């Protein structure tokens, strides 16, 4: 019976609520929408789908799944009783809810015993204990060394070259010693060893007669099934005999061989990398290894490594796959901080990040950042920027990355420069700007914390900081932080039930009312909890976690290490909630200034942007912080005059916005600067032209040549032209004049010069035009996503399920449940199709693969239909040998040879029942 088929029928029979729950937990299953239930089942049990699902599992779920995977026969499955026996520290009842959850996640298929063929309308009151089957791709995802156990004898014999022979030798010796010489034709050494080991009642029985130190040696394989041993392939039997005869004389040479290092190939293992044989003398270890390998209890893989077979490992663990079931997260003493401290820190960060981002955009708008040939922005440009912003270089990396991922600076591929594109940004109020940043950061597939690290160093804004799993890791980290910050004061959660994940308490209700303190977990505590909530990605997140937390701190999602209410809203993607919370907490922009006699203007708070822009033109900003300090100077006033301001205008502007009278020295400075301004007027000209006779010049200006040369009179006897001197001279000569040339005037190659200058002068407005043309107002990334979701919502509305009936909900609710609507639509689609469509659609390859696996396991022949090199399907009777790496190895009894066929060419697989088609 195919697992896929079982899963399909189970999914088809499941109630709506359960399916919606599944789609909410595993959204990748409906992205893109699946056609029917068999396709859904195929997707749910595909390698990628399972891998994603496993990344989300928490420790007890993963432990249970691993145990099931190890104890369950691929075809027969395992009962809950068997499972409970394999898991130390938990009974059958205790495991039941976790197991049910795994079933609901479509990672485990429950089947009543005995398994009956698919019957969608089957009722659940069958007799006999239910049997649980893990989905097909679990092996590929969990790997060969799940639960820290090695491979089984059968697997080792099949997959390690030369292993069968060594096992045969070992098994042969054992059998011979028992006076039971096997028949070489039908004898399977792996099976013999398997039987021998599983027949052993206890570890002690297995190790009877072992040399000293064997137990200690095996203890090192408790979590890691492999070890490195020098000369692992030595003839163990001979060596053992030799050492027995020669006594200690061999010890010297074996000492260095006996250095064991646990090799941590297994991703889930929590053991450190390498270890020494603590407490075991070198020759003792060598002896023990020799003894074990001679009996096939330790299997040499190659010249340097040995593996402890699963059977042996399991026996040593007394049959328990999982040594300790962790039903609850590790209990930690989370330090508490005052609520006011948290809010102070978070709101300070919110204000600071917006302030810094605005000045960064201003700075980048002024001088765009050039990219390096190697990618990213050079450290010199970044240092300059950091100096401008008054922050350290490491922080400026983050701000640059943040600006890029919020799409506030963009790379212009023509110039290879980063330009600021902040049209839509500047128009928003501060809370909206903050949500823009926070939402963009949350979904970003870049890790700013990688910048400046590594060898070679990762440049800021370069491709190396890209990590496709960043949003998942970041999201999970924040969720873990949230659970840690929410679990205030409550002791260990109910051990029996799985903790409710995802839907946290409403933001408003989280602040402890009685005492004003909140938990503020340290980074290592968050990591420890992450290891429980999501054990599989824990190793990947370990390096990035500190970065995530410090970035959340910089953004103000958390304050002093504790997640804030608006941070919680962001984690739940409740943008509007976050917006409302931040908007309420941010002080109103101030509209007034305090002008002082030392020629400073102080804005006591965040100055309204248009006011700040005008003031920044009139005076130079000083210092950093919530309040703005601006200093007037002669230079800054001149700058304002050059930009077209007048003393009167500035004074009325100041009088209008100042809460205090304009100090006399400032007024004097303005008037004084005004009187000095414009004594000289500067313009740009390429060539000047003077005439002794004003009338002659007037005549020239009136002629056609003057228009061509763009001659402008600046006094009765002087005119200027933007053209080069050579051009002017030749034009005048052409008009019949004979101009004199002022000494030092270059007449050659002048037109080039004029050309470039024209180019530069006209270039500036053009680029401005381009910026202006950039279309409608820019949107924040999260807003774009929301718009798309709304559109999708509308398209789905026709085929939506029962959920869509409650259309009277508010707009916010509709938006928040966009994902749910999609799930409902998906469900409606599924229900409208037949459940089991074998051989077609998405499920076909999965089914074929499953058949192949089954055939490999059962050593059965198959009818395999594959597309040949000429494009025509071929149907052959073959023996599949193994499936790996996208190819299936088959033995062709016709030609007597093995060949490999790409999985993508396989069209259909049909297992031939044993004895029927065998050659």
């Amino acid at each position, binding site marked *: 019976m195919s697992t896929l088929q079982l899963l399909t029928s189970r999914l088809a029979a499941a109630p709506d609520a359960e399916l919606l729950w599944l789609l909410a937990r595993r959204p990748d299953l409906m992205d893109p929408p699946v056609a029917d239930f068999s396709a859904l089942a195929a997707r749910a049990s595909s390698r990628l789908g399972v891998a994603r699902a496993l990344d989300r599992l928490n420790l007890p779920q993963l432990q249970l799944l691993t145990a099931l995977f190890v104890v369950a026969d691929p075809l027969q499955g395992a009962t809950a009783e068997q499972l409970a026996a394999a898991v130390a520290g938990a009974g059958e009842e205790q495991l039941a809810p976790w197991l049910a959850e795994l079933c609901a996640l479509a990672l485990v298929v429950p089947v009543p015993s005995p398994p009956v063929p698919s019957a969608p309308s089957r009722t659940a009151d069958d007799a006999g204990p239910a049997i649980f089957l893990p989905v097909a791709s679990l092996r590929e995802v969990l790997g060969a060394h799940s639960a820290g156990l090695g491979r089984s004898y059968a697997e080792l014999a099949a997959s390690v070259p030369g292993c069968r022979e060594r096992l045969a030798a070992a098994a042969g010796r054992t059998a011979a010693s028992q006076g039971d010489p096997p028949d070489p034709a039908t004898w399977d050494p792996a099976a013999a060893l398997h039987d021998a080991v599983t027949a052993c009642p206890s570890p002690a029985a297995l190790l009877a007669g072992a040399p000293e130190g064997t137990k200690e040696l095996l203890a090192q394989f408790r979590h890691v099934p492999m070890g490195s041993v020098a000369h692992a392939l030595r003839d163990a039997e001979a060596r053992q005999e030799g050492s027995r005869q020669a006594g200690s004389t061999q010890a010297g040479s074996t000492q260095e061989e006996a250095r064991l290092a646990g090799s941590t190939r297994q991703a889930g293992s929590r053991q450190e990398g390498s270890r020494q044989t603590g407490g075991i003398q070198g020759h003792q270890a060598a002896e023990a290894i020799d003894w074990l390998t001679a009996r096939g209890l330790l299997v040499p893989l190659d010249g340097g490594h040995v593996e402890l077979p699963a059977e042996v490992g399991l026996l040593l663990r007394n049959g328990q796959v999982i040594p300790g079931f962790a039903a609850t997260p590790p209990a930690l003493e989370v330090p508490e901080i005052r609520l*006011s*401290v948290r*809010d*102070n*820190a*978070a*709101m*300070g*960060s919110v*204000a*600071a990040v917006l302030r810094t981002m605005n000045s960064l955009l201003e700075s980048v708008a002024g001088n765009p950042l050039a990219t390096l040939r190697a990618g990213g922005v050079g450290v010199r440009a970044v240092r300059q920027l950091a100096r401008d912003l*008054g922050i350290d270089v490491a922080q400026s990396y983050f701000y640059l990355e943040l600006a890029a991922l919020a799409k506030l600076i963009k790379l212009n591929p023509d110039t290879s420069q980063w330009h600021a594109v902040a049209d839509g940004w500047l128009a928003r109020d501060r809370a909206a700007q903050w949500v823009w940043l926070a939402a963009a950061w949350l979904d970003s597939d870049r890790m700013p914390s990688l910048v400046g690290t590594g060898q070679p160093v990762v440049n800021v804004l370069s491709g190396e900081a890209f990590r496709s799993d960043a949003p998942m890791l970041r999201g999970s980290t924040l969720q873990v932080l949230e659970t840690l910050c929410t679990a205030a004061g409550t002791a260990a959660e109910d051990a029996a039930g799985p903790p409710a994940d995802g839907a946290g308490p409403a933001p408003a209700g989280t602040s402890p009312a009685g005492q004003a303190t909140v938990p503020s977990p340290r980074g290592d505590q968050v990591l420890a909890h992450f290891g429980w909530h999501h054990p599989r990605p824990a190793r990947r997140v370990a390096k990035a976690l500190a970065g995530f937390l410090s970035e959340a*701190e910089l953004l103000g999602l958390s*304050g*002093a290490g504790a997640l804030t209410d608006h941070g919680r809203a962001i984690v739940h993607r409740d943008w509007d909630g976050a917006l409302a919370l931040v908007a309420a*907490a941010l*002080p109103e922009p101030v509209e007034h200034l*305090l*002008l*002082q*006699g*030392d*020629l*400073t203007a*102080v804005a*006591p*708070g965040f100055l309204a942007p248009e006011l700040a822009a005008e003031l920044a033109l009139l005076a130079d900003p000083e*210092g*950093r*912080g*919530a*309040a703005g*300090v601006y200093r007037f100077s*002669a230079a800054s006033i001149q700058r304002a005059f050059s930009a077209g301001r007048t003393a009167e205008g500035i004074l009325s502007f100041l009088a209008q916005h100042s809460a*205090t009278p304009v*100090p*006399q*020295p400032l007024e*004097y*400075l303005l008037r*004084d600067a005004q009187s*000095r301004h414009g004594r000289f007027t500067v313009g740009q000209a390429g060539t000047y032209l003077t005439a002794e006779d004003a009338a002659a010049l007037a005549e020239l200006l009136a002629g056609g040549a003057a228009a061509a040369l763009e001659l402008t009179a600046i006094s009765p006897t002087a005119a200027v032209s933007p053209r080069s001197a050579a051009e002017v001279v030749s034009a005048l000569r052409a008009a019949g004049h004979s101009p004199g040339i002022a000494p030092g005037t270059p007449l050659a190659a002048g037109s080039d010069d004029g050309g470039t200058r024209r180019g530069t002068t006209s270039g500036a407005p053009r680029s401005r035009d381009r910026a202006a043309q950039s279309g409608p107002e820019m949107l924040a990334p999260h807003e774009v996503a929301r718009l798309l979701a709304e559109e999708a919502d509308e398209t789905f509305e026709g085929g939506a399920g029962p959920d869509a009936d409650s259309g009277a909900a508010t707009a916010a609710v509709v938006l928040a449940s966009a994902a749910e609507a999609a799930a409902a639509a998906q469900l409606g689609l599924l229900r409208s199709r037949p459940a089991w469509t074998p051989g077609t659609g998405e499920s076909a390859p999965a089914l074929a693969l499953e058949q192949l696996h089954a055939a490999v396991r059962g050593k059965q022949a198959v009818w395999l239909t594959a597309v040949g090199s000429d494009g025509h399907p071929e149907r052959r009777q073959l023996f599949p040998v193994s499936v790996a790496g996208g190819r299936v190895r088959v033995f062709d009894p016709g030609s007597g040879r093995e060949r490999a066929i790409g999985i993508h060419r396989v069209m259909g697989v049909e297992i031939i029942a044993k004895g029927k088609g065998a050659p």
Partner: protein
Amino acid sequence: MTDGPLIVQSDKTILLEVDHPQATEARHAIAAFAELERAPEHMHTYRITPLGLWNARAAGLDAEQVLDTLLTYSRFPVPHPLLVDIEDVMSRYGRLRLEKDPVHGLVMRTTDFPVLEEVMHAKKVGPLLGPRIDASTVVVHSSQRGALKQLLLKAGWPAEDLAGYVDGTPHPIELTAGDADAVAPKDGTWSLRPYQNLAVENFWAGGSGVVVLPCGAGKTIVGAAAMAVSGTTTLILVTNTVSARQWKAELLKRTSLTEAEIGEYSGAAKEVRPVTIATYQVLTMRRGGLHPHLELLNDNDWGLIIYDEVHLLPAPIFRMTADLQARRRLGLTATLVREDGREGEVFSLIGPKRYDAPWKDIESQGYIAPADCVEVRIDLPRDERMAYAMADDADKYRLCASSESKSDVVEKLVAQHAGEQILVIGQYIDQLDEIAGRLDAPLIKGSTTVKERERLFGEFRQGLLKTLVVSKVANFSIDLPEASVAIQVSGSFGSRQEEAQRLGRLMRPKADGRTARFYALVARDTIDADFAAKRQRFLAEQGYAYRIIDAP
């Protein structure tokens, strides 16, 4: 968020809104750990420095209180990194302590083993230390007490000095206060004001340190009271001879000391008596690469050394002070801010701040504008402008500062303030000669004899002389509270700090409520104006009212 009077900036400054109802409260609270940097009319700027925080620690404040103050009074969220930094900095003070050990003499103890390891392995600190006694204690060469403290401060681990002091030669000194039978004080009965008493108590309990009191708050009396508590021979270091005389007069008035017990050690006289008043100038005088008079500090067994105007203490005195760590040291000053940024040495060598005057006294003194500063902008005539434009850089200042047109303006101003006590101050003698001639007023310059100076000053004080022209040489001895108008035609005083102080001393609000007026004549569009801009900024930051007018 509360609507407090403070705005804490991320660049470690604190803005205080003066007109806020809670401003006074907040000011008291932050004065303990932040230094006032600028005090213009509406927004005062305080700065948080490690020294300020350590001073607060030495005064018994802990980080929790500092953070609480900031959070309580701040209008906006306080940058969290700043809070963390404050906590970190404050926790550094006192982890190392200098103590007296009965067996080993001077030792350095720590409560934090790694810190001791860190400083012991610093290149410069190592040689100052003796053998290690145990994990947390190390012997210190007693001669290196000051040098060690300086280095530890630089390393960021300021040591708390609990090693005690030598007694010095006893010499009973008593205050005349409260003793009806003693020689009657000349100005009637008096007693220590409560805050002066507190300052002395704090100082004595702490051993050594600085007492910060604003001008006129009676620093001399605090010194005298400290001497009385000490009851030993005392060395008083002051900035100049005039100040030395004032000290002497004050001591005679306030204490049981007699003329014969007080010696002056200055350029004029070199007397060493139980109480000796020496000037910085004479101590730092160099002859042949040596400071012949610096030995005065150490050759005598002083029980107390008083440093007047600590913020002006010159570098050689610091070097010498480093060797005097076993003697009690009292620093007196109006401000801890030093022009040369040597606040750290004041902290490590003289001691932490022991007392800061309540703001109310300062308010009555310095921060309601004590004088009205007016800058008069003068257009140079055309020929002078051409001369200025073509002059060498070295001559430019002289040219614009001693412009003819300034003399005209001085004449007009003097006429405008007829009947008031007017002082004309300048740098260039020929310019002053000319002005004196025009005004028909006496001129005091370098060549004027001391006797003549005394006479002229005396007449001016008594009001017999209405107008006086003085050159730069007279700057040092100006103490003319009667002057109500000063006109500066050229040059500026030494440091900005000194300028503000002298201005304050010169220009007191008058009895009839009229503020004194300080004119500075500035030639427009020249470097004279650049200097003026700096002065304007500084004076405005000090809280003086400042105006600019065109020449009448």
